[in-house]
C-alpha cells in the first residue's frame, strides 16, 4: 500500500515542520499567553452559564440546582405573539443603520484627510467627536424638543412651506429615520477616528507621485486613500453583520411610545420588559433569547467572513 505509506511520511514531515515552526515562534506564543489567560478566565470560564437557557433558573437554587427545562424557553420565544414582528423590526433597524451609517465615517475621514488647513481639520474632528459623550437620555430629550409639534424648530421650518404641524416622534413611519440619523449624527465623528488612524499608513510618496502624474484630488482620494481604509472597513462590516439582531437598547427604549411601538419594539427591549421588568426576573428566558441571537449572529458572521475572504481578500481568522 504505497499510498498509505506516502501519506504517513507526509504527515510525519509536516508534523516535524509544525513542531519546528512552533518552537521557532515561541516568543510570539509567549506574547499571546497573557491575553489568552485573560480570555480563558473572563470570557470562557463564565460560558457554562448558557445552560441557564435550558433550565428553570432561579438565583436561590443556583445554576446547578435549578431544574431542567429543556427547550421550553426557546419554544416560548419562537411561538410568542410578537416573534416575527420582533425579528423584522430588529433586522430592519439594524440593516438600515448599517447601510446608512456605515459609509459616513469613512467619507468623513477621507474629507478630513484631504483638507489641507490643519486647524480646520483638527477643530472639525474635535467637534464631531464631542456628541459621543452626550448621554442618550439627553439626546432623546433634545429630539423631543426639536420635533415638538407645538414649539419645535422642525415644525416651524416645515410650517414655512405650508405644512401643518406633525408629531414626528409619534409617527411610526419616522421612527427608524429618527433613530438612525440621530445616531449617525452622534457617533459619526467618533467612528471616523479608526479610519483616520488607518489613513496614516498611506505613504506620502504615493500622493506625490500621483500629483506629478496630474491626478485630481478626488481621484487620489479614491485610488490612494480609500484602499488604505478598505481592510479595516471590511473587518468592521463583518463584525457589524454579526450583530444583526442587536440594536442600541437604551435609546430605542427611550424613543418608544404608544404610537410607534409596532416598529419600535425590538428584541432587546422585549427581553428587557419580560426578563427584568417582570415580577420575578426571567433569567432563563432572557438567556435563551440571547443564545438564539448569538447563534444567528455567528452564522451570519461566518457567512460574511467567507464572502469577504473570497472577494475582498480579508478575513477575521
Amino acid at each position, binding site marked *: 500500500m504505497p499510498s498509505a505509506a506516502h501519506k504517513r511520511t507526509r504527515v510525519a514531515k509536516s508534523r516535524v515542520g509544525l513542531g519546528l515552526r512552533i518552537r521557532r515562534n515561541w516568543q510570539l506564543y509567549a506574547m499571546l499567553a497573557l491575553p489568552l489567560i485573560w480570555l480563558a478566565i473572563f470570557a470562557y470560564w463564565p460560558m457554562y452559564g448558557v445552560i441557564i437557557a435550558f433550565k*428553570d433558573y*432561579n*438565583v*436561590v*437554587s*443556583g*445554576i446547578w440546582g435549578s431544574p431542567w427545562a429543556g427547550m421550553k424557553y426557546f419554544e*416560548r420565544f419562537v411561538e*410568542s*405573539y*410578537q416573534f416575527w414582528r420582533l425579528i423584522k423590526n430588529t433586522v430592519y433597524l439594524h440593516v438600515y443603520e448599517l447601510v446608512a451609517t456605515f459609509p459616513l465615517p469613512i467619507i468623513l475621514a477621507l474629507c478630513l484627510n484631504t483638507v489641507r488647513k490643519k486647524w480646520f481639520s483638527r477643530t472639525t474632528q474635535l467637534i464631531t467627536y464631542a456628541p459621543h459623550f452626550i448621554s442618550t437620555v439627553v439626546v432623546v*430629550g433634545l429630539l*423631543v*424638543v426639536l420635533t*415638538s*409639534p*407645538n*414649539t419645535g424648530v422642525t415644525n416651524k421650518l416645515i410650517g414655512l412651506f405650508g405644512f401643518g*404641524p*406633525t*408629531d414626528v*416622534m*409619534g409617527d411610526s413611519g419616522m421612527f427608524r429615520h429618527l433613530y438612525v440619523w440621530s445616531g449617525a449624527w452622534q457617533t459619526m465623528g467618533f467612528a471616523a477616528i479608526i479610519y483616520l488612524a488607518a489613513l496614516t499608513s498611506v505613504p506620502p510618496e504615493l500622493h506625490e507621485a500621483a500629483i506629478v502624474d496630474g491626478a485630481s484630488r478626488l481621484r487620489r482620494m479614491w485610488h490612494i486613500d480609500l484602499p488604505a481604509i478598505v481592510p479595516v472597513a471590511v473587518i468592521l462590516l463583518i463584525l457589524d453583520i454579526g450583530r444583526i439582531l442587536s440594536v442600541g437598547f437604551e435609546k430605542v427604549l427611550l424613543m418608544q*411610545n*404608544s*404610537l410607534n*411601538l*409596532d416598529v419600535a*419594539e425590538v428584541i432587546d427591549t*422585549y427581553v428587557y*420588559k*419580560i426578563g*427584568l*421588568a*417582570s*415580577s*420575578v*426576573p*426571567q*433569567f432563563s*428566558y432572557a438567556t435563551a433569547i440571547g443564545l438564539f441571537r448569538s447563534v444567528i449572529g455567528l452564522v451570519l458572521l461566518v457567512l460574511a467572513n467567507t464572502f469577504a475572504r473570497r472577494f475582498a481578500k480579508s478575513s477575521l481568522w
Partner: protein
Amino acid sequence: MPNDHVRPGVSRRSLIAGALGLTAATAGGGLLSACSGKSSATGAAAGAGEAAPSVTLGPKLATVQYPDGYVGPVARALKPITTEKTTYKIVVKQDVTIGDWKTNAFTKWLESKTNIHIEWSQIGGTDDDVMTKVNAMIAAGDIPDAFLGIAFTRSQLFLYGAQGLFTDINQYIDGYALNLQQAMKDYPDTRKLIQAPDKKIYSFPGINDCYHCRASDGRAWLNTEWIKQVGLAMPQTTDEFHEVLRAFKKADLAGNGKTIPFAGYKDSAIDPFFMNPFLYNPGEPWLVVRDGKVDVAFDKDEWREGLKFVNSLYKDGLINRDVFTADEDQLKRYGNASGKPLIGGARTNYWGSFLDIDQKDPDARWRQYEACPPLKGPNGVQYAAWDYTGVGVEVAHLVITKKCAKPEQLVQWADAQYELEAILRGYGGPAFAWAKKGELGINGKQALYGFDATWNSQKNINWSQDNPMYRSQDFRLGERVNPKDMTFEKPLYEQTRDKYFPHKQPQEMQFPPVTLDQDQAAQEAELRTNLKGEVNQSFAKFLTGQLDPNDDGAWNDYKGRVEKIGVKPYLELQQAAYETYNG
C-alpha cells in the same frame, strides 16, 4: 383601606393614652401591660433576647400634641436594643438625595438610640440596576443580614422566602415589633396585603396612607382663571368638559394660536381619566373584579364609547398632538412658558409634572390650576378610580435574611423606625419641631409636627423614604401648615377629598396586588407586555384617528388582536392569583 372603619376603637385608646402622657406603657393595650413596669425600670432590658422573649415599648413623650381621634404612630423614648454595640450588614441603594449612608444624620441618631451599628453596602444606579445587582449577590451567596429599601416584588419575596432565603418575621411581630403590631391593628388590611400565599410575612412594610395618591392616576387639572375668562364653570360631565376645552381654544388664551386646551404626556397614562365616565377603569393592566370574577376593561363596548369621546376631542384639536410622545420636560415647557401658560389643563398626578411649583409665592401659576372632578358620562357613569390597596401598604422596605444571627434584634431595630420621632427624622431630618397647641395641620385639625422650611434642600440628613415607616393618614395630615411656605400637600389633599373621594368605586371592584409563583410570573410578564403594547397602541391610534372608533371593523379587529394575544389565559392566571389572595 379607608381608615374610617378603624377610627373609633383606636382613637379612644389613643386619646386616653395621650391624656395619661408619661405613664406610658399601658397605652399599648392589655397584651403589653404585664411587662411594662419591669422594662421601664431597667431601661435597657430588651437586649437579652433569649432571657426575655418579648420586649416592651418605651414611655411616651409628653410634649407631643395629638389631635382628637388621632390614629397613627406615637412618639416614645427609644430604648437600646443591646447593651453591647452590635453590627449588622445591610444592603441599600446609593442615592444622592440621601447622601452617604455611613455619615447620614439619621444613621447616627438611630445608632445612638438603638446601639445597633450598621455596615452598609451601597448599590448604585436606577431601581432596575439595583435589582440586577441584588439578584447577582443572591446567586453568589453573598447575602447580607438584611436588605433595606430594595424593591422586591411580592412574587420575589414569596419565591425567595419559600426557599428559606428570607426570614418569616410573622413569628417575631408579637414579641418584638410592638409599633408594627399597633400599626397593623390600626390598618387591619395590612396583614392580608403583606403576607405571602403561605401565610408568612417576609418583609417589613412601609405603611404610607397617602390620601391623594389613591386618586393620582385619574386626576386632571384645569386652569380656573381661563374657565372664568371664557365665562364657564368647572365641567362636571363629558359634554361640559368638551365645551370648556372648545372655549379655551376659541378664546386662544395663550395667544398666537399656541393654546393647548388639554395636555398629557407619555409617562402618565390618560386613559384612567377619560374612560371612567364610561366604565370603571383603574388603568394598566386594566383589571377589574365583577362579582368575584376578574375581568379586563379594554375590550368592553363602554371602552369603545370612551374612545369615541377622546377621538372627538382630538379631532377638534383640543388635546396636544404630542400627548403620547412629549416627555415631562416638554410638558413643563408648555406649562412654564414665559408670559402665559400654553396649557388650559393637563392629566398629571400633581402640578409639578406640568409646571414648576413655587411654594413661597401665593400667586404662583400652579395655584391657578384646580383638580377637574371625575366626569359624568352620557349614561350617568362617574367613577374616580380609587386605589384602595395599591397605595398605603408597600412590601419589602426591610427584608431580613437567613444570614442574620439574631433576627429578633433587627426586628426591634426595624420596629424602632415605626416610632413617631424616628419617622420624622427618617424622612424629614432633625429640623422637625413638635407643633404647639393651636397650630393647625393640613386637615385643619391640631397639628402634630412641623418642618423647618428648608429641610428638603439639606443633604445627608434623612433616609429619603427608603426605610420602613408608619405614616397614617392622621400623621400625614398632621403636618403644620406654614402660611409662609404653602406646600402643595394641603390643596392636593382638599381637592382630592372634595372631588374624587365621593365618586370612588366600591372596593370590591378593584383588583388587589396579588402574588404570583415563578412560573405564573413568567407567563404573566409575557402576556402583560404584549397586551399592554397592543392596548396602549390601539388606544393611541383610536384617539388620534389613525383607527376610527366609529368603524365596527376597526373595533372588531382590535378585539380580535387582544383575544389572540391571550386575554383568556391572562384572566385565568389572575383569577387564580386573586383567589389565593383572598385565601
